[in-house]
């Protein structure tokens, strides 16, 4: 990864208003984008594209498809910036969600070649992500990781492979050698357990 891309992805969780990728700054850029400010849009892109691209590429694995989906995501961001609600999400989380959903939609429309599960699992580090790549406030991240740790190992892997790598129920069923309905049941249990664990 180049220094430039690394730079653009840092401090996503930093709340300092002076940081180029702080939540306040991104929110300000989004507000300007609602007024069709193209310079603000370019700045928003510079500050967030590496994170969105990384998210999408991890799901789709191919740069060509990732380019198309990230393009679609930024066009959506341009069009829907006015719908961003700071009370309900951080700017980067809102943007990543748009890109992730676009990537998963694309993957469901046209599934990629069979997975190489070992590689995918190797992708999901058990160790703490580096502090400077935090999307969310550190506390939220710690809580989620603690709750994930409380899940049975296989269910934890399922949640990670689905969320981060875009695996479908069928993909999970194949890999974990379980019927699809069992996978669905496990996923629901895992999700409910996470919800309960994260509840205030």
């Amino acid at each position, binding site marked *: *990864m180049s220094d*430039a*891309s*690394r730079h*653009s*992805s840092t401090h996503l969780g930093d709340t300092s208003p002076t940081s180029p990728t702080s939540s306040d700054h991104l929110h300000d850029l989004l507000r300007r984008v609602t*007024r*069709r*400010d*193209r310079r603000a849009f370019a700045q928003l*892109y510079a500050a967030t*594209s*590496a*994170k969105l*691209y*990384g*998210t999408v*590429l*991890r799901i789709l694995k191919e*740069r060509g498809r990732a*380019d198309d989906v*990230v*393009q679609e995501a930024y*066009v959506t961001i*341009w*069009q829907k910036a*006015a719908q961003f609600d700071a009370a*309900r*999400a*951080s700017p980067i989380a809102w943007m990543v*969600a748009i890109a*992730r*959903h676009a990537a998963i*939609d694309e993957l*469901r*429309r046209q599934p990629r070649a069979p997975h190489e599960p070992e590689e995918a699992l190797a992708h*999901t*580090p058990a160790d703490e*992500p580096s502090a400077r*790549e*935090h*999307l*969310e406030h550190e506390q*939220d*991240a710690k809580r*989620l*990781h603690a709750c994930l740790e409380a899940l049975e190992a296989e269910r934890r892997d399922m949640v*990670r492979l*689905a*969320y*981060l790598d875009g*695996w*479908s*129920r069928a993909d*999970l069923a194949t890999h974990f050698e379980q019927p699809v309905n069992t996978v*669905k049941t496990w996923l*629901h249990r895992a*999700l409910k357990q*996470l*919800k309960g664990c994260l509840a205030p």
Partner: protein
Amino acid sequence: MTDHDDIDMLAAEYVLGTLDAEERAEVAQRRQHDADMEARILAWEARLAPLGNEVEAIAPGPDLLERIERRIDELEATFQTKSKSEDDTHGATQVIALRRRLGFWRGCTGLATAAALILAVVMIAPFDDTPDAPPFVAVFQQDDQQPAFMLSVDLDSRRLNVRPVTAKPLPDRSYQLWIKADALGPKPRSVGVLNDDLSLPADALSDYDSELLKRATFGISIEPPGGSPTGQPTGSAIHGYLYPTDRDAVSQHL
């Protein structure tokens, strides 16, 4: 399992990404009008978002921003989104929107040389719907130099005023004003050929309703005497800047 559980699990799996294409499409549509579903989806997004911290940031290729901006240009040219602009960027925003539309006109005139022709594009769309919104004045420029024409339109009365600034009557040539709007199809329509004194009847737009005019763009081209022989602009050259003005200033022109 209760219905609430079902809905919450549907939202959760939507966010997790494990639904199939059909189920995803249903949820994506439902969230548009179902506030409960939308709230559940956002709650799940918030719960799971920290997982994204694990994703390695990867810079996209250097051309992607340009691709995205081109795509936005295409969309904006054919679909003008009205936005509520509330501050002093108002005028600037409209100039940007206007510039964006220039490419659209270039594409549809199929003209040979830019230099031959003055065609400026005007967008009359005020970006708000307040009744006191001032009419807008468009400035048609030639070769990025001095304004050639100014056009003002009062949306309430649908009266227009074209006024030459530096443009002069041309021997053996006529100026022609065109209107273009999605509702009128892909091609510009003639509003009229300018008189010898470079004026047009103020009621030349009275056939168009104000909603259409708000979304329309305008251009002026140089044509053979009496107007374009083809019913379409036969020349182009395009630089336009749009200036909001207040009602008093415009009434002087009218």
